[in-house]
């Protein structure tokens, strides 16, 4: 607990002695750079797999679909989050003039978070995944995340409550917003029903799950990779430059408008999908509005260096900060641009999004983190930085690496988007074979590998430099004891100012406005952390509900399609394999109502097609083709051979090999529990299916395996995972064309031109 002791002083003021906890931010700082290297190394590996697909060697835990979530989770929740915690633990104590609320909670927070990271690093390569981007971790880990976050929140707000500085500085506003909002996002997006110790199903389905997921996904970027890093910027940049923040006014505008507007913008990830149009437009408009606060903040950061620009040439810390804030400006200009529907129609599902994300992640998050570490660690280790020259070298290597990463990927994205949409003079797709559009960007993927390698090399240099700095620490750290007067318990706000319009011929409202304008409302709020945080929470919750309630309650959002039926037990088992393997990392299941897209993939996707998809699998990237109408496109034996080794079907394919699926057995015994969990989230399985789930799955598996043999494929696959996955793939998109049951045939008419159905894959037939 707080090592505080009241001591009498010479003057009237009663001083309290305390020390800062420096061990915790130091530990988080080392965890940041260590996990950063690991996360970037995995990123480099997945980049290599795209450029040179044979690298994974058909090893299950090295496949792209399993490692890409490991990369994203590692850099977001291990690298960036540890950096946030290091910044919060260092600066909050100093801004509050108080030690952290509890040393025990600090230790639980640190070790608990590292344990979560280790659990993620084990489970994701094993194919244990919820199948939701950036929220892949399964329910036991999700619960652990929530608990550790609560520990962090208690420790953080407890420190605010015991502060000796009356007013909260800007950084603390941003930290408070992060602590509250991330808790809300994490809990509500991850609500699920467990089906097994490491398997659960989201309570949301289809359109509603998509909205929740991108409400979460977008705001995780906003409140884990933006607001805390802005708090970091407002603290460490003035410190490093020795100058106050450029404009306190701008920081007030920046904070409140960012917090209020950001939360609305998630639906821009779902333009032209089955999401209702009103939600999509709402997301776009609020995304465009984000330009204002984002650029306000960017300018505030850069102009903090006014009069201190000469320091930038000599100080690697300021170099990192300047480039970091510049990339914040670039990324936050580009984000709203990409949210504009017409731009999004081109950019969505392409590498453009990947380039945008990495401009923000490597440029903004990465550079701000390294700048902070180079400034903070020598102070925490009570010594000089081991090598300023090495830090400067890191800066230049990382900058070149960053440019070499993003430029080719921007080119790849625009190339791919343009090729997908290209129509020839005859009205046909100019590049009908998807593989052509992929092969065109492989050279860019190779250049990206070089860029990523350089950036990783820079991170390794940082690790070495910071480790060497720590090694130079004194034999015994000096413990700095601070003496500060406690806050007087009964603080009185200054009286409200009088209207300056007294005697003027104006209505009473003018007096009120004049008084309101003069009053220091915000200053008052800055000394009331509980109320301040409550206002932030209200802004976030209200904005969220304005999107979520209509999405869940308007019936016309998801028109029912009578022919859409729940997956059969075997198809469900196959779908779980699809989720675990992370197929959504490369394949979308969402055909947008865009000419080139319907020509390539078929009828555009309808909201009612996804009502049993827990979770939805629309994806966000097409490294491979869309699979929304994959059912019946290829024979089952084609699917088996393609999964076994995609390059025996098409030598230019970069898909991983899944030959092991031909050997690994389906978990038939686990199917009943999964069906029951699906029933709990609202999928209408009848009692017969629930009681005979495993037997039904075996029966359909035998039929699919026989079909594969009949098509001159390998024999003996009756119990193998590949059969379940093929059953699922052969079902995709076919319900829309299924013959309606007689009772409902008169009421609904499915679209014409159904693809040919084969007996083992009749939706709901088993």
């Amino acid at each position, binding site marked *: 607990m707080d090592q505080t002791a009241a001591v009498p002083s010479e003057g009237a003021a009663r*001083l309290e*002695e305390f020390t800062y906890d*420096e*061990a915790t931010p*130091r*530990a988080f700082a080392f965890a940041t750079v260590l996990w950063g290297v690991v996360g970037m190394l995995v990123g480099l590996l997945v980049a290599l797999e795209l450029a040179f697909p044979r690298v994974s060697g058909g090893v299950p835990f090295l496949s792209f679909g399993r490692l890409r979530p490991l990369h994203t989770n590692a850099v977001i929740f291990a690298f960036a989050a540890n950096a946030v915690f290091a910044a919060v633990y260092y600066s909050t104590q*100093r*801004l509050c*003039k108080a030690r952290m609320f509890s040393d025990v909670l600090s230790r639980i927070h640190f070790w608990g978070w590292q344990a979560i990271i280790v659990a993620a690093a084990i489970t994701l390569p094993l194919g244990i995944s919820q199948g939701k981007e950036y929220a892949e971790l399964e329910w036991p880990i999700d619960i652990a995340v929530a608990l550790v976050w609560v520990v962090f929140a208690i420790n953080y707000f407890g420190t605010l409550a015991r502060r000796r500085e009356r*007013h909260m*500085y800007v950084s603390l506003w941003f930290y408070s917003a992060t602590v509250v909002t991330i808790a809300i996002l994490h809990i509500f997006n991850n609500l699920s029903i467990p089906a097994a110790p490491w398997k659960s199903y989201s309570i949301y389905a289809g359109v509603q799950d998509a909205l929740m997921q991108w409400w979460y996904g977008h705001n995780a970027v906003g409140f884990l990779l933006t607001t805390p890093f802005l708090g970091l910027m*407002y*603290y460490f940049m*003035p*410190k490093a430059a*020795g*100058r*106050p*923040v450029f*404009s*306190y*006014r701008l920081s*007030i*505008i920046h904070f*409140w*408008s960012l917090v*209020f*507007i950001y939360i*609305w913008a998630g639906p821009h990830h779902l333009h032209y999908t089955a999401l*209702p149009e*009103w939600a999509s*437009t*709402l997301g776009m*408009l*609020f995304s465009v*509005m984000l330009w*204002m606060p984002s650029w306000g903040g960017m300018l505030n950061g850069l102009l903090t260096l006014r009069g201190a620009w000469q320091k930038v040439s000599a100080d690697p810390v300021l170099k990192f900060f300047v480039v970091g804030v510049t990339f914040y400006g670039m990324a936050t200009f580009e984000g709203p641009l990409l949210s504009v529907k017409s731009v999004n129609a081109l950019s969505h599902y392409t590498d453009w999004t990947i380039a945008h994300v990495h401009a923000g992640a490597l440029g903004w998050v990465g550079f701000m983190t390294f700048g902070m570490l180079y400034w903070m660690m020598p102070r925490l280790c009570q010594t000089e930085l081991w090598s300023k020259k090495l830090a400067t070298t890191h800066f230049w290597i990382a900058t070149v690496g960053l440019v070499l990463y993003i430029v080719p990927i921007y080119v790849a994205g625009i190339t791919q988007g343009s090729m997908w949409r290209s129509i020839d003079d005859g009205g046909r797709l100019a590049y009908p074979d998807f593989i052509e559009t992929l092969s065109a960007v492989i050279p860019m993927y190779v250049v990206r590998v070089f860029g990523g390698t350089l950036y990783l090399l820079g991170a390794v240099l940082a690790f070495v430099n910071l480790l060497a700095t720590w090694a130079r620490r004194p*034999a*015994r*750290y*000096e*413990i*700095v*004891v*601070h*003496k*500060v007067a406690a806050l007087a318990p009964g603080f009185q706000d200054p009286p409200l100012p009088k209207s300056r319009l007294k005697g003027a011929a104006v209505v009473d409202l003018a007096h009120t406005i004049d008084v*309101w*304008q003069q009053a*220091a*409302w*915000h*200053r008052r709020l800055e000394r009331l952390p509980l109320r301040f945080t409550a206002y932030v929470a209200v802004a976030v919750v209200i904005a969220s509900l*304005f999107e979520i*309630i*209509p999405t869940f*309650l*308007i*019936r*016309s959002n998801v028109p029912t399609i009578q022919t859409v039926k729940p997956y059969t037990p075997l198809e469900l088992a196959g779908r779980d394999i699809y989720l675990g393997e992370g197929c959504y990392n490369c394949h979308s299941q969402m055909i947008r109502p865009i000419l080139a897209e319907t020509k390539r993939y078929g009828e555009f996707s309808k909201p009612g097609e996804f009502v049993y998809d827990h979770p939805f699998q629309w994806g966000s990237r097409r490294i491979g083709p869309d699979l929304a109408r994959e059912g019946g496109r290829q024979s089952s034996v084609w699917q088996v051979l393609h999964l076994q080794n995609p390059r025996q079907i098409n030598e230019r394919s970069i898909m991983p090999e899944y030959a092991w699926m031909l050997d690994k057995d389906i978990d038939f015994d686990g199917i009943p529990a999964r069906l029951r969990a699906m029933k709990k989230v609202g999928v209408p399985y009848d009692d017969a299916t629930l009681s005979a789930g495993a037997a039904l799955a075996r029966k359909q598996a035998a039929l699919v395996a026989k079909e594969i043999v009949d098509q001159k494929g390998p024999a003996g696959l009756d119990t193998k995972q590949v059969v379940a996955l093929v059953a699922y793939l052969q079902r995709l998109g076919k319900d829309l064309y299924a013959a309606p049951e007689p009772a409902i045939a008169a009421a609904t008419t499915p679209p014409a031109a159904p693809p040919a159905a084969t007996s083992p894959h009749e939706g709901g037939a088993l």
Partner: protein
Amino acid sequence: MNLTDVVSHAGFAGYAQVGFVVSLVAFVGLVAWVTFRPRSEMKAHAQMILDEEQATQQVLTNDRRQP
């Protein structure tokens, strides 16, 4: 009549536009209020971060080693 009926018949054609305008007005109000704050007051608040260490009395000890 339940909440679903109410929301389903509310009509959401102009929802995004209304939300946009309301938020824009709130934003302009915030900017207007902040713009008219006294310059000296704002400067003093910004200075807070650099005053942080000056306001603290420090005593150095050397009594234990930390990891």
